[in-house]
């Protein structure tokens, strides 16, 4: 494993448009947030069909660390809804090496696999963290990895270990080491925040007195595009998460919104009204050059989203009367309609594996999150909150993050793509909305 690089200091810059009553503050992300409680707490309210029983044995020497690893690993796996955590306490001796594992004992406890490991402080101040995942039945090693990380990266290492276990046991990539972004509204204050996928370590990257909507992760995870109303009209910005610098990339006459990254990270599809109605255009992600118009209707065309292979764009259009979801070639061209249930289907997002898309559907007076499979055209309704919106996929296509309201307050929630696992994220203060799940990033 490569060592975790440390990233540069936080820089604070004032926004380009500082108005007397509307100061906008931009921030770079700390590589690792300062030791703080999770601003978002996640509770799980549903479980997978057949949970895999695993045990995470304490790692050697982790007790003395400021950040213990195994509680984070266990919490990640439990939160996924796919694992049942088997009690790992009371083993004498605690196994740190394969030859110390008492397989029959673990089998008696019902575990299918057990993770063992150790943490060793090196002379250069970094830690050597190694773990092995052991098959309890076959009594063999399923996986083993070594990580070298400074103290500040211990939590991230725990997430990566959880990812490795998840991948080995389910066949899917784990998303525990990813991040999410969302907007928090506190009174008249809006904050665009980035947090770990478990809600830990939320940091504010933009604070404003005017709304912020539609944050979108660049494919490299290092930039966010978003819409800010700080100029008293919607303008699309691209901001670096490492430096805090940003640029207005779409500030044409009228409204500019709904940024969506092309998979190569070089372009954005956006909704512009500069030529009259809301239409889709392609612009360079650095804002240079003239926009290329993609749609040519007299209707509303908005909420573009690229397919993972970059070939297609799905979007919302009301050219047929009410808003429905269409797909067209990414270079523009004849769109094909995909939604036919009800008169209101909006906010489409491709699954990262390209096989389906999630969207928001209205039924009567209620809004819920649904998924449609491209191959079968079948639609599955996944939620029933009544005011569910803004769906986006986790990068392993297994979970969908969305926004909802509980007792009038905006919160985030997640549901597995088969509808079985449900999570609810609660925030300390304020309304949370506009979530987006970040990409897998190899470090």
């Amino acid at each position, binding site marked *: 494993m490569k060592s975790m690089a440390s990233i540069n200091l936080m820089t604070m810059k004032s926004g380009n448009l500082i108005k007397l009553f509307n100061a906008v503050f931009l921030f770079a992300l700390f590589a690792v947030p300062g030791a703080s409680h999770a601003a978002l707490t996640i509770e799980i309210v549903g479980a997978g069909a057949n949970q895999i029983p695993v045990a995470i044995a304490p790692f050697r020497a982790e007790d003395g660390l400021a950040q213990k690893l195994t509680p984070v690993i266990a919490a990640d796996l439990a939160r996924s809804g796919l694992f049942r955590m088997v009690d790992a306490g009371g083993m004498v001796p605690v196994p740190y090496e394969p030859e110390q594992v008492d397989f029959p004992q673990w089998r008696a406890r019902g575990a299918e696999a057990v993770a063992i490991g150790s943490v060793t402080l090196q002379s250069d101040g970094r830690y050597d963290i190694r773990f092995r995942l052991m098959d309890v039945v076959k009594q063999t090693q399923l996986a083993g990895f070594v990580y070298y990380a400074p103290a500040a990266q211990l939590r991230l290492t725990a997430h990566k270990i959880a990812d490795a276990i998840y991948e080995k046991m389910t066949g899917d990539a784990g998303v525990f080491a990813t991040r999410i972004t969302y907007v928090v509204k506190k009174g008249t204050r809006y904050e665009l925040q980035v947090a770990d996928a478990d809600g830990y370590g939320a940091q504010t990257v933009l604070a404003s007195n005017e709304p912020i909507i539609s944050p979108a992760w660049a494919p490299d995870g290092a930039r966010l595009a978003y819409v800010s*109303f700080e100029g008293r*009209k919607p303008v699309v910005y691209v901001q670096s998460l490492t430096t805090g610098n940003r640029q207005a990339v779409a500030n044409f006459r*009228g409204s500019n919104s709904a940024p969506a990254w092309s998979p190569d990270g070089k372009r954005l599809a956006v*909704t512009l*009204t500069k030529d009259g*109605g809301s239409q889709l255009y392609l612009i360079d992600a650095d804002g240079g050059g003239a926009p290329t118009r993609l749609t040519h209707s007299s209707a509303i065309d908005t909420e573009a989203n690229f397919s993972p292979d970059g070939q297609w764009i799905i979007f919302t259009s009301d050219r047929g009367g009410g808003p429905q979801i269409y797909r067209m070639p990414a270079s523009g061209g004849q769109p094909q309609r995909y939604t036919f249930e009800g008169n209101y289907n*909006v*906010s489409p997002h491709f699954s990262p594996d390209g096989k389906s898309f999630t969207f928001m559907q209205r039924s009567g007076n209620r809004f819920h999150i649904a998924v449609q499979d491209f191959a079968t055209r079948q639609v599955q309704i996944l939620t029933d909150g009544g005011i569910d919106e803004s769906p986006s996929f986790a990068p392993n296509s297994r979970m969908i993050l969305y926004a909802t309201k509980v007792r009038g307050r905006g919160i985030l929630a997640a549901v597995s793509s088969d509808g079985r696992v449900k999570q609810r994220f609660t925030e300390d203060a304020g309304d949370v909305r506009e979530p987006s799940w970040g990409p897998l990033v190899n470090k």
Partner: protein
Amino acid sequence: MKKFFVGLLIAGVLAGCSSTPTKEQEGAAVEDRKPSVEAPVAKPADSGVVSQPLGTSTVTADPLKDPANILSKRSIYFDYDSNLVKDEFKPTVAAHAKYLGQNRNKQVRIEGNADERGSSEYNLALGQRRAEAVKQMMQLLGASAGQIESVSFGKEKPRAPGHDEAAWAENRRADIRYQGE
């Protein structure tokens, strides 16, 4: 323009203390803002004595802010799922269009809004349609396109914070805002 407003003030003040036909002048002031309106301003009843307005602000004479003037009306309300400018609001739109037509240096931004139901971005586009409908009507009635920018706040800046039909109706709205306000 400033002279005219001062003239209007004096006319207004004098209305209370003379029997000159001030009604005509006030009528003229509302409908016709050409500088020539200055001509019919009445002379002071006592020559050599000029009455001074007490504590009045020239701002109230700005037709855009005068509550008695239709130009101070800035909001157009819409039905659900609609961007049609209803008959009851046409005089307001027409008045602003005319004002813009007569004041080519003035710029407005029309801010469209939508109620809270539905996706942020689709509501942004709905609000934009409402703003655009007002803009189009203004262009037909005397304003030029270069004076008007239509933008949308979608559902992001509701004026009424509730979650019922009354709040939603209040938020289905386009507001006219002049540059500098």
